[in-house]
């Protein structure tokens, strides 16, 4: 094949994706590198509250990497426990989002088009109010003298208020509530595109509706389930607001520990180490997994053309 000058010119597509990537580099990659730098510094009183990594003196540049934060992370069981607990909370949240969100997304995707848009609007509607306000509303609902307990006692279902507020259960309720739309949206997009003739083909070949669901709908909606689960799981791991407002003192999550190190203990290097380890341990493997999934889908789509 003969090459001409066009092959060396950046295609218009590349130019179009420069601004968002520049934005991400500036506001995601650069801050992360700063955090990485701070994680290797030592605690110091003053502004900023940490030492610099490189020092000049005696015609030599001395680079000192402090690993106090990392050592503490791997020796103090508090941190390992917090990591595990964060993953547990995120996993349970994701599981509930899958169990509750799948039927909702399925029902919406199978509704007639007019109703479908209305139902999607209802799913997105909560985003019109700030998350903080919505979580405050849950405080009002779940408190011992809140709406839920009031209703249940008025109905005579219970005699004493249920202790939900400031427990793990309250955190789960709040998290599932807040993240459910993030699961429903990508799954709905996958389900609504599913060719219904494939289901007819399955019925035609002897599959009952539930068998057709298990063997056709479910495997074909896998990309939507995975995308939704990622969108729920990843931010759930580092969630701060919901455990802080609804959880008890012993609901330990990464977000709260980070907050504590930064603002209560003013130990920036420690907080930075926690962040770095979380990113490397959790998010990088997930990002690689996600990349593999996307590539697989792209290949399948290219093949269809």
């Amino acid at each position, binding site marked *: 094949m003969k090459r001409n000058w066009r092959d060396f010119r950046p295609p218009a597509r590349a130019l179009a994706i420069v601004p968002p990537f520049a934005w991400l580099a500036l506001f995601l990659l650069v801050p992360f590198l700063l955090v990485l730098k701070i994680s290797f510094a030592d605690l110091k009183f003053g502004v900023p509250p940490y030492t610099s990594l490189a020092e000049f003196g005696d015609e030599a540049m001395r680079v000192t990497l402090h690993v106090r934060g990392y050592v503490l992370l791997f020796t103090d069981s508090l941190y390992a426990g917090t990591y595990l607990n964060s993953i547990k909370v995120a996993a349970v949240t994701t599981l509930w989002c899958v169990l509750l969100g799948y039927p909702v997304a399925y029902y919406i995707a199978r509704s007639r088009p007019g109703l479908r848009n209305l139902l999607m609007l209802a799913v997105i509607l909560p985003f019109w109010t700030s998350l903080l306000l919505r979580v405050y509303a849950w405080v009002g609902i779940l408190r011992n003298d809140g709406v839920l307990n009031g209703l249940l006692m008025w109905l005579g279902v219970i005699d004493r208020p249920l202790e939900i507020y400031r427990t793990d259960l309250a955190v789960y309720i709040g998290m599932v509530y807040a993240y459910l739309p993030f699961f429903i949206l990508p799954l709905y997009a996958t389900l609504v595109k599913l*060719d219904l003739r494939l289901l*007819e*083909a*399955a019925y035609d070949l*002897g599959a009952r509706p539930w068998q057709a669901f298990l063997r056709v709908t479910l495997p*074909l909606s896998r990309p939507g389930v995975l995308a939704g689960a990622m969108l729920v799981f990843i931010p759930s791991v580092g969630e701060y607001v919901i455990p802080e407002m609804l959880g008890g003192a012993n609901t330990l999550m990464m977000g709260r520990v980070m907050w504590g190190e930064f603002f209560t203990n003013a130990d920036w290097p420690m907080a930075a180490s926690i962040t770095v380890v979380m990113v490397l341990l959790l998010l990088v493997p997930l990002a690689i997994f996600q990349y593999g999934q996307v590539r697989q889908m792209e290949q399948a789509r290219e093949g*269809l053309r």
Partner: protein
Amino acid sequence: MADGRLAAQQYPGDPDAFVRVVDLVKIFGDTVAVRSACLSVRRHELFALLGSSGCGKSTLLRMLAGFEQATSGQILLDGEDITAVPPYRRPVNMMFQSYALFPHMTVEANVAFGLRQEGVAANEIHDRVFEVLDLVQMAGYARRKPHQLSGGQQQRVALARSLVKRPKLLLLDEPMSALDKQIRQKTQIELARILDQVGVTCIMVTHDQEEAMTMAHRLGVMTEGRIVQCGTPQEVYAFPASRFVAGFIGSTNLFTGTIVVDEPDHVAIESEDLARPLHVSHGVSEPLGMEVHVSIRPERMVVSRGQPAGERNWAHGMVSHMAWLGRYALYQIRLDSGKVVEASVPSQALSQTDAPGIDDEVYVSWDSDSATVLAS
């Protein structure tokens, strides 16, 4: 099922019918998709339902498959009433227009789907899947996914998948519509050959009259939710029952006139479009003076520069348009009455004579056995 057999006996029609559709009606909201369709298909027969889009043929096929519930009427298969049987319990399989192959499964898994659903033993599934893949010459592609196959290959897999359960009735929904025009005709003959080899009873739906005539043993022409004529391709082409069928199966020249002579072996019809009466060499049941239509196919029209002998079955006119189509040339000739008729002249005949061109004066003539009288 006893009442199903009873209904089969009550229905007057082909006693050998394997598939029987009795007064089938389907109404969606306030539109009638299928109104009182009646149909008999024999065992091992390849039957084509032919009609333009929206004529109800697809709805009829979907009722045969069980995807749509009939509003009223009956479907009998091998003497059994299957009208209310859900699709997953019917001994009927369908090859979909878009093939509807499962994109997440290999060719082998696609074909095996129906057998697994039946609970057939694994080694038997393997044997039967490869037997049918061999039949469609796709055994070498068993591990591929559908998106790695060409349109023609996907069609063969879809055919294999619909045959592997050995259905009593196979349905084909526009089997060629997703293929390129070049490979269509070859595929039509190949598909008809495989279906004959398997001996499966088959009902196909198509809007393409050539496809129906190439593949089917018999065909039924559908319009406005009704099957208006059934017969072999030759019968329907030579003796269309109505103006609609005459125009739909091939093109035709129609003359409107009244019967002036009615003898057992011929009739004469006077038409405003023709200076001389039309002679038709078959008798009709219509009375004298009744208005009828006469159909003469373009290939039965003879074009000549000289005046034909005799006093009937010819007309004078002028060539208004001519199209060279390779095997034949299509002439449009404006008769003296203003009526435009079409005549197709084989290339061979054209090269032998001094071919008339546009604005040339010509005569068109036809034999009295070339014309067919249509009552409606």
